[in-house]
């Protein structure tokens, strides 16, 4: 008598593992990523060893190396800066403004901004810096 070996059914590849991996990746990128609007020009902030942690929220005013301005990622003229910042400050309860200036930006473009922003209602103005790279380990 010939007995046939029962065909073992291969379990279907579960899709739950894939969903788990994708979900973890999704949460990872949501947590570590910053959703700030990027400036329409290149901005490399100056380096500093004693910078404090960046507070969240607020408005970002970017200054390029040539003195061009942008508010929350949208380029503005110098004459339109006040109205744009006022509009942004009126739409939120935030009074924090970050000045994200290029390290080569001349201070005649940056320092008057602090006074202007304060006059427009900003109560906290911070300068954005990047931490100095750690010295190489020997």
């Amino acid at each position, binding site marked *: 008598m010939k007995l046939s070996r029962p065909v073992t059914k291969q379990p279907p590849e579960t*899709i739950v593992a*894939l*969903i788990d991996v*994708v*979900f973890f*990746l*999704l949460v990872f*990128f*949501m947590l*570590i*990523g*910053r*959703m*700030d609007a*990027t400036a329409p020009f290149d901005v490399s*902030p*100056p*380096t*500093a*060893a*004693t*910078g*404090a*942690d*960046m*507070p969240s929220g607020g408005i970002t005013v970017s200054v390029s190396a040539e003195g061009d301005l942008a508010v929350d990622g949208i380029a503005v003229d110098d004459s339109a800066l006040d109205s744009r910042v006022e509009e942004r400050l009126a739409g939120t309860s935030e009074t924090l403004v*970050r*000045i994200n*200036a*290029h*390290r*080569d*930006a*001349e*201070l*005649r473009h*940056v*320092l*008057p901004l*602090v006074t202007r*922003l*304060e006059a427009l209602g*900003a*109560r*906290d*103005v*911070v*300068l*954005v*810096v*990047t*931490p100095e790279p750690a010295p190489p380990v020997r």
Partner: protein
Amino acid sequence: MQDPGTFSLARHRPPKALISLVPMIDVMLILLVFFMVTSTYLNLDMIPAVKRADDPSQSVPQSTEGAGTTLMIRIGADGIPTLRGVGMETPALEALFIDRLQSSSALRVLVLPSGAADMQALVSVLDAATRAGVTNLRVVRLEVAE
């Protein structure tokens, strides 16, 4: 035609899944790609320029004692900090701050940068002062009188 002596049992059809997982996976993948593309990973810090505590209407008038402990640092157009006309490198400036702080803990530092100096020069001076332990530091600038 079915034999009247037999009967058949119908196999139940497996119930259809109420919610398909495929659209959810599609949405998650789109969200994942969105966050991967739009996220920036710059490590940013900040240096406070104006604080609420700086509001002049709420500040207590400071006494004029220790008026001789003010240090004025100028930053030239080339970005080099100078004290009484003498240019200094950042480590020397930091050492100077530490030295002055030992003689007077209420040291007040005023920084007067040239408008043509770059942002990195100012931040380097602020950094040196903070590292040395200076707590009273102001950045001043000249304005054209109207």
